[in-house]
């Protein structure tokens, strides 16, 4: 077991190194940001001086080596735009994104699993068909379109919900003030809808397959009430794949927060990356990708380890 964990850990570190190289190569190729940074009346000398100051005059491998040595010390460079450490810029925005993603995840789990179970227990009934059609809508509606319709209905027409920002904060979170909660409703629902639909579908499919197993038939045959069979015997075995998917989907939520945050001007990392791409703010883009990649690799690592506890067959390999 310890060997397995060590192996996975080394694998994770390897991936991070590959990614750091890819990310750096990408941004290196992406072009020279000096022109964007200087005022229009700057001279040629100013441009050269700035290049030297930012280290952009060095060849690729020198820049990458310096980047890596600094990176292991937690220094990815200063943002060209904000003047602060790029990592710090990303970390300052991270709580807003994590908050949004967590609320969205919570909404989709709390609604998705019960709805999925309901749709599997009586697959031909009218409510089940309704749930499945809703889930189909959920995966068919692009995230940005959901957000736009919500803004149109609740902000433009009804004027009941704010369409941008986080509202009043308390302890760095919008969840503790009434204004903050009003602000998070629409972005969180927008972000949750796709995941909700996905969880409904996964739970239903898993449940349908489990309900056909012999041990379920046995449990029913020996006279256990249907309710117990469904919620204890069947759900327990359905949840294993669903939970691992939920773990992986948290990464998806962080990625799709890019879209949601852009629509609702939510001051998180997603809006930051779009702004930074437009401003060619290379260090911030690199920092964002590294932070997000680390989060993904970490999630995958945890999921891998959880798998071995849930399914001992994997450990043997």
């Amino acid at each position, binding site marked *: 077991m310890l060997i397995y964990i060590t192996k996975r850990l080394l694998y994770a570190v390897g991936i991070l190194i590959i990614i750091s190289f890819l990310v750096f190569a990408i941004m290196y190729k992406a072009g020279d940001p000096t022109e964007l940074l200087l005022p229009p009346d700057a001279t040629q000398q100013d441009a050269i001086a700035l290049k030297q100051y930012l280290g952009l005059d060095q060849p690729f491998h020198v820049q990458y080596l310096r980047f890596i040595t600094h990176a292991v010390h937690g220094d990815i460079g200063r943002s060209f735009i904000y003047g602060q450490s790029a990592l710090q810029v990303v970390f300052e925005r991270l709580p807003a994104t994590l908050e949004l993603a967590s609320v969205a995840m919570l909404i989709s789990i709390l609604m998705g699993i019960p709805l999925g179970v309901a749709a599997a227990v009586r697959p031909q009934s009218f409510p089940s068909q309704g749930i499945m059609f809703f889930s189909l809508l959920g995966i068919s509606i*692009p995230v940005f379109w959901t957000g736009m*319709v919500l803004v149109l209905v609740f902000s433009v027409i009804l004027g009941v919900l704010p369409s941008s920002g986080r509202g009043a904060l308390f302890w760095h979170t919008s969840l503790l003030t009434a204004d903050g909660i009003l602000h998070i409703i629409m972005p969180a629902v927008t972000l949750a809808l796709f995941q909700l639909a996905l969880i409904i579908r996964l739970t239903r499919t898993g449940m349908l397959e489990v309900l056909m197993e012999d041990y379920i038939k046995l449990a029913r045959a020996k006279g256990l009430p249907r309710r117990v069979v469904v919620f204890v015997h069947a759900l327990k075995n359905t949840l294993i794949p669903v939970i691992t998917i939920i773990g992986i989907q948290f990464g998806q939520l962080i*990625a799709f927060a890019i879209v949601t945050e852009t629509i609702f001007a939510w001051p998180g990392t997603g809006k930051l990356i779009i702004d930074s791409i437009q401003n060619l703010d290379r260090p911030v883009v690199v920092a964002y990708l590294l932070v997000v*990649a680390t989060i993904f690799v970490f999630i995958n690592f945890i999921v891998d380890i959880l798998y071995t506890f849930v399914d001992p067959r994997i450990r043997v390999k």
Partner: protein
Amino acid sequence: MKLHENEFLAEYAESKLAVAGALLFVIFILLALVPSIFSSQNPYDLRQLALKNSFLPPGSGFLLGTDGQGRDILSAILYGLQISLFVGVASTLLSVFIGLLAGLISGYCGGLIDTAIMRLADLQLSFPAILIALIIMALWGQGISKIIIAITVVNWVYYARTARGSVLAEKEKDYVQAAQAMGMRAPVIIIGEIMPNVLAPIIVIATVRIANAIILEATLSFLGLGVPITRPSLGALIASGYQILFSGYWWVSVFPGLVLMLVVLSINLVGDRLRDVMNPRLKR
């Protein structure tokens, strides 16, 4: 498969919703093939636009209204539909081609090639598709062919994995062993013997993933990293309409959005049904 074709169609048709989805999708394809039939103008021929017609609400001579340049929204939607569907179908075909090839080679050859291709696939799958495509487009800039390639880079993995899995199962069967014993060369066996037998599951996945490709393109275009604004897809139309949503000109973005939703929904209805019909584990 061939023998049961009628049975298959009959079972598919049991779901009226799925039949409606298939019909709707065919209609969208036909509209996209010849958008000029139902368009009152070519929305990108500036000589046909008149500024006096700008921001007319739906119904006032223009069924779905006009945008700020006096462009007929219905015409813009039909031309945008063409681009959205083209990007969706082209990128899916390209990714099926590359994914199938990679999966067949990976599964048949095994060894180092297999490890390399599958590790690459694993690495890619641990990152959300939208993020990878976003970075590619951010580097490259807008463009229809660029977005097709970006979506292909993201999507080939799904076909490669499915194809590889099927090949591993097929490889041990007698007909492949017979072909090998007869001294047929590997490319001939892979393409002539194995490929026809692994296509069915790939086709099912591909239909569903056309919808994903269309959504991905629309999302990137909405973020300003997709198709150029001179040839807008549905996603780009929605993006340009979003900026003026707060001024009350809702029809500029809402109608393209509805069409986009219906297109994706129709494809998903078909894909869902295909999957249910072909999954023997869910048979009663």
